């Protein structure tokens, strides 16, 4: 049994390996992009809207409001990054209903890549909002003595993001695979449904935590700096 889709290699040339993670990711990217193009091709700015347009607007506005509720006032600035994270992870989880499908988020490489994206996006957005010095000062809060702990916190939460998503998605697939061998009729269906819920929850958690990290990096804390 292959724990990670990384182990399914379709093509390799030295260091370069085209495995199932990459292929599925590309398919998903193509599906998301193609679906977006198709859905937004006949989008109407005035007049009656199609059901697909209503669905898209509902999803987008839901993500925007979630970001705003976390504290990011300029939610639309962070929408592409956080929204893409949520849609990618949620799509990966939803497609587990397809037999033989291995979600790319079940690969530690993918989750670590996403966590690293978050790790680098947080300072980028922080510097964008507060400037370079303003962002660096956040590591000295509440006292400069906290600098090492803040750095460790940055790394540990990135690691937590990656491992949490990987563990949940991989375990779900593993549980279904094990149960298929033990009770192949109804139990795997229930576990797949549970895996759908778990995947959606993980997508939500990943996106919300990303928003929280960006929010903490982009918002200054004058009460902390004031003596």
């Amino acid at each position, binding site marked *: 049994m292959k724990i990670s889709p990384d182990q399914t290699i379709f093509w390799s040339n030295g260091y370069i390996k085209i495995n199932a*993670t990459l292929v599925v990711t590309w398919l998903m990217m193509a599906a998301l992009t193609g679906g977006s193009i198709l*859905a937004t091709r006949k989008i109407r700015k005035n007049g009656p809207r199609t059901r697909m347009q209503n669905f898209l607007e509902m999803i987008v506005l839901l993500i925007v409001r979630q970001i705003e509720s976390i504290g990011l006032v300029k939610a639309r600035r962070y929408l592409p990054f956080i929204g893409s994270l949520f849609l990618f992870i949620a799509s990966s989880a939803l497609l587990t209903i397809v037999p033989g499908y291995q979600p790319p988020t079940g690969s530690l*490489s993918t989750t670590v890549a996403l966590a690293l994206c978050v790790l680098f996006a947080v300072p980028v957005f922080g510097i964008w909002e507060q400037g370079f010095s303003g962002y660096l000062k956040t590591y000295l809060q509440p006292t400069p003595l906290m600098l090492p702990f803040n750095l460790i916190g940055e790394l540990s939460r990135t690691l937590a993001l990656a491992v949490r998503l990987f563990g949940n998605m991989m375990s779900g697939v593993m549980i279904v695979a094990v149960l298929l061998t033990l009770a192949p009729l109804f139990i795997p269906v229930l576990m797949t449904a549970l895996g759908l819920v778990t995947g959606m929850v993980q997508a939500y958690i990943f996106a919300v935590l990303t928003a929280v990290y960006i929010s903490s990096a982009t918002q200054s804390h004058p009460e902390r700096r004031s003596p």
Partner: protein
Amino acid sequence: MLFDWFTLLAQIVNFLILVFLLKRFLFKPVLKAIDERERKIASSIKDAAVKMQDANKTRDLYQEKLEDLERQKAERMQELAEQVEQEREKKLARIKSEVEHESERLRNALQAEADEFAQGFRRQLGHAVMDALEKTLQDLSGQSLEQRMIERFAGKLAEEGPLAWQAPESQGAVKPIETVRIVSTWALPLQQQITLESVIRSQWPGLEAIEYETDPAKICGLSLHWGSLQLNWHLDDYLASLHDCLDSLVTLPEAQSKEQGASDDKT
């Protein structure tokens, strides 16, 4: 190994590409559509607010105009009511005047008619009475009545004398007696002529002649003519007195009705 560096780098690149693609083909068009719609809704709301403001201004303007019209209407109605009242009073006064004038005219006409009727009635009554009396007297007249008339005429002449004679035109001085003319209804018998001449001559000793004439129009009586003076004794005098009495009897109710009409007008 669960971790592959190439896959990790590739996934980072893949994710960044996915972010770009979704931003380009999903988030941006959807947000643009939403913004456009919200902008249009906001514009519509703003236009509606402006239109509402204009409508409120127009409504206030028309409300003021309506109030002005109501006020003008009330004033005009008041003026019209006053004019109607004045016109009504004028017409009432004119109609009252016309009615009074017409009533006066009718009353006068009625009075004239009543007077004419009364006059006619009196005339006819008088004529009827006179005709009846005349006929009665003519039927009753005879020697004895004529004799009595002569005696009465002679007695009157003896009592009053020539100075009591009345001139039909003026009281003149007594002229010297030359001729006396006696007019009677019927021819006087000789005996009566003698009686009458004796009385006349006793009153006028220088009398030269006495002439006798008849006038059937006279009713049972005698007239003595002396120049422009004359002495009459006729039943015409009595009949005239009777005629006056009948007139007073007929006209009395008319005078009373006139007085009653005048008192009604005053009330």
